[in-house]
Every structure is written in C-alpha cells, then in structure tokens.
C-alpha cells in the first residue's frame, strides 16, 4: 500500500491532500476535501452520478484514482454557481422540473456543461447522446433534456448580448 501527497486544482482552488493509492477521485473529493456534491451510486462506471470534469472532460470519478488527478484540474458541482447566482444549467434544471430526488443532478449537469462547451446549440439527439452515461431513476429524462435545451438557449443569448 502506498500513500501520496496529491496536489490538484478543484473548482479553481489549489488543494493538497495525503491520499492512499487505492482511494478513487470520488472518495478524495468527498472524504478529503469535503465536497459531497459528487455522488457515488454504482461505483463501477454505469450510472454517472459521480461525474466530474477532469481538465474539462466528463469522467466517472469512481473509476479514476485520486493520485491520477495529480496536477490536474477538476470541476465539481460546487464550482458552478457564482456566489448565490446559479449557473444557467442549474437554474434551468430547477425551473424545468428536471430535479426530483436530485441524486443524478450533479452528474447530469456536469455532463451537460461539457456538452454545451463542445456544442453550444445541440439538437435533441446530441443532448441524449451527451447524457447517455448518466442514469436517472426519477424523471424519465424528458425534463432533463428540456432543461439542457433551455439552458443552451439562455447561454447563447447571454453570449451574443
């Protein structure tokens, strides 16, 4: 067993932590850094509830070792809002009724954020494919897709105004 001093940037802030090699990034975020917005469901890559952005790309943090995030940048759901102002995606999820129990929401919103960065005006199929790695047991997905669509309109509106 080995332990490592891990340095990484999470939500724009530098962190340093002493972590065991066998702790996943999800564990490090939740247990060492206290960022419990990242959820752990299946723990084996199937559900996407642990999705975070690693250098901008969505990954399942249950299948990344904490030590593999050395010197890299992580964005979790806690990094989206600016003070009290929700990110347009968070706000659209609330308004569209895309959040029921909320367990899938952090992962869904981060997958959606990565999608909108790549494709600011996605079609319905793009959204479904972008969210294909995130399961929701509550909403039936329709309202989630609508929320991402609304957010994309609002964000491109903001960008052009």
């Amino acid at each position, binding site marked *: 067993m080995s332990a490592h001093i891990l340095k990484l940037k999470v939500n724009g802030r530098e962190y340093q932590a002493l972590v065991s090699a*066998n702790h996943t990034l999800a564990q490090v975020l939740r247990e060492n850094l206290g960022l419990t917005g990242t959820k752990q469901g299946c723990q*084996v890559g199937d559900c*996407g509830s642990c999705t975070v952005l690693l250098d901008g790309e969505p990954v399942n943090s249950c299948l990344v070792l904490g030590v593999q995030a050395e010197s890299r940048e992580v964005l979790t759901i806690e990094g989206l809002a600016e003070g009290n102002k929700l990110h347009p995606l968070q706000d659209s999820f609330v308004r569209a009724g895309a959040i029921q129990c909320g367990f899938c929401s952090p992962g869904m919103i981060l997958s959606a954020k990565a999608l909108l960065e790549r494709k600011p005006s996605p079609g319905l199929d793009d959204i479904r494919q972008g969210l294909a*790695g995130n399961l929701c047991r509550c909403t039936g997905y329709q309202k989630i897709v609508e929320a991402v669509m609304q957010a994309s309109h609002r964000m491109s509106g903001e960008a052009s105004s």
Partner: protein
Amino acid sequence: MLLPSFTYHRPGGLAEALAMLDGFGGQAKLLAGGTDLLVNMKHGKQAPAQLIDLDGLAELKASGSRGDALELGAGLKAAAIAGGLGGAAPQALAQGAGALGSPQVRNRASLGGNLVTARPAADMCVPLLALGARVALVSPAGERQVDLPEFFLGPGLTALHPSEVLTRVLLAKPRPGEGSGYGKLGLRKALEIPLVNVAAWLALEADGKTIKEARVALGAAAPTPMLSPGAAKALAGATAGDDAFAAAAFAAAADARPIDDHRGSAEYRRDMVAALTKRCLGQALAQARGN
C-alpha cells in the same frame, strides 16, 4: 465498493515503465484508463500488489503515419479516436470507438486497454481485425509485432507476455478505393457490451466495381473476435453490390459460432450477424466509392 490496497507507481517514460514491470516480476499490472482493471479490482477479480500507471505517458498517445503504415499509440482514448484523429482514423475504428460505453467511459478508455482486455465483442477489437491491424509489443528485450488473429487467444487472453507493453497499433493507411464500416447491436443504445457486432473492410479494383479484397470481422460470435473466412472468399473478385453482400452475409452467419444466453439466442445472433454484415459492407462500399 472499495479498491483493494496496492502500491502505485507513475513512471516518467516507457523505458522506466518497462523496467518496473520487469522488476516486479508478475506482481504488477499496467493501468491505463482503468475502466476494465479498476472495475475488476472492485469486484475482487484482480488484486495486483503494484500498479504501474501508463495514463500520463505522452509517448503512448501519439498517432501518425510512417510510409504506408498508420500508427496509433496504445494510450489514445476512445473519445479521441471517435473524433477521427484529424481524419486519420479509419471509419470503422472511429465508429467502434464512438459506440464504446458512454462519454465518460470514452474519455478514459484506451485503445491498448480494449485490445488487452480482449472481450469477444470489444468495440475497438472487431474493427481493427477487419482493418488487418497488427500490434507492437515492447519488452526490455526489444519489440515484436503480432497480427491480431494471433494476438487474441481467448476471452481476456492474449499473446501479450507479462513483461511486455502494447505500445502501438499498426494499420495500412486508408487509400482511395477502400472503405470500412462498423455495426453494433445491443439491448440498449449506450453502456452496453454488444450482443453482436460486425466490421467490414473492402478494397475495389481500379474499375470501381470489382472487389479486390475484403475482410469481415465478427464479435460475440466466438470466444475471440474472429474473421469470417467464408465472407472474405465470397467477396474477393465479386462485383460489389447487393448480391455479393447477401452471399457474404450468409457465409458470415455460417462461420459464426455464437452462444445461447439470457441476452439472446444463438439463432437470433446468427441472423443479426447476417444483417449487420450487409449493413457494414454497404457503408464500406459507400466510403470506397466516395474516396
């Protein structure tokens, strides 16, 4: 679900990784994207004492051409390959990489990991077999190159020695008059190991009609991804089109040795091998004519 304990190593380059692998003599496992290995470790199927992380090695992430050959680094991620590698990735391989898992899995899953895991229907293995790929295996003793039909020995079993790293995949550079295609059938559209998958590659003669050479690869049809000798024979010298493709589909279904399980019967899988074979050959032909 916790990971068993192990010691983690981050080599600075391939040479160091090889020396570590050699030094630990069978105690160590290579870690790439971890989407197979970490899952197996969580399920208690594997418990290596040492993990050697290849994920950061830039040497394994390069792609480029050397003469007539296209070389793809084993560390390339499925997401990058699905994106086409700036037009360099053959169509069937890009399609296979794009059908693998989910966006999150594709951002981690590597080409080398997919080949070494060697599932009978792995999404990058089947296209690479149709494309006639070889792999470069490097150990402290040097490099050897192995054709994929000799590399896949069984489910999860390959010709890779414990002291070797798979560094590159070697392919012939796509030429005009050639094309490839991939098709996958699962019970759902994402996060699914295929029920059946097929890849096809063909090269046309200068007349643009006659098939010079073709390969059809089948997944989930045997313990390893396999080439269909019958389909290759039915296609060589034939006029490209529905008749030849129907004959190849029939031959591919006859070559397939699928299993019966809770996900689908052998008979259904065989029918789907035929249907996907026709579809992939159609895609390959369209690409060959468009080039």
